[in-house]
């Protein structure tokens, strides 16, 4: 029973999960980067169809397409949102990369959690306000759930940063206990 439990832990233990989540989020950030490059380059080289004030960009291999209103503010909003998503997943992947290390309570984890907090409590809400009120000039609160979600992520990351800071302190003391 213990052997089964140990095998299970080695296969699906915290380090294994960190590895999987690192590759998953890094993959998503690379996919996002390729998407935003393809999206913006398509407009630059006019690789899109124009139908009823809407653009259609064919996605190769998948056989589907991206579509939206053919307006500068819409294209800018999509590009900025995609760039934010790329950075979001990149920082998230860096957190799990730091968690893969032998000593979980390390300065890299704290640094990346701090970036994640700033991203969700600072950059995210600022981008939301910029896109919502300045670029798209909306007066409703339809997408407010995205902002609430970002703030929730940020608050959780803030608590985790504080916890990890205390963890590093305890780890340092433990390392210097002979």
């Amino acid at each position, binding site marked *: 029973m213990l052997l089964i439990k140990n095998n299970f832990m080695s296969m699906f233990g915290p380090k294994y999960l960190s590895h999987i989540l690192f590759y998953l989020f890094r993959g998503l950030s690379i996919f996002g980067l390729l998407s935003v490059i393809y999206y913006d380059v398509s407009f630059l080289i006019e690789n899109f169809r124009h139908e009823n004030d809407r653009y259609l960009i064919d996605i190769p291999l998948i056989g589907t397409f991206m579509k939206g209103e053919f307006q500068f503010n819409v294209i800018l909003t999509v590009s900025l949102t995609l760039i934010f998503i790329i950075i979001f997943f990149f920082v998230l992947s860096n957190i799990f990369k730091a968690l893969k290390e032998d000593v979980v309570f390390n300065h890299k984890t704290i640094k990346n959690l701090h970036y994640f907090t700033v991203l969700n409590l600072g950059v995210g809400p600022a981008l939301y306000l910029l896109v919502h009120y300045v670029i798209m000039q909306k007066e409703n609160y339809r997408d407010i759930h995205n902002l609430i979600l970002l703030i929730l992520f940020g608050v959780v990351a803030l608590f985790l940063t504080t916890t990890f800071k205390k963890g590093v302190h305890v780890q*340092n*003391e433990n390392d*210097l*206990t*002979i």
Partner: protein
Amino acid sequence: MRIIVNLDKVLADRNMKSKELAENIGITEANLSILKSGKAKAVRFSTLEAICKELDCQPGDILAFQLD
């Protein structure tokens, strides 16, 4: 106020090298060096016991309290 580690002095009195002590009490030379340099945050009773046993001394011979 600080705790002074007089391990070097006791080792010299016993004519013993740090490497030998580290091997005999089962800690690494690096950890013994941390202890000797005064960078250690704490000393386990088990480590202190092993050092005292090996060097045939009292904890007070190794550790001392000093006012700044």
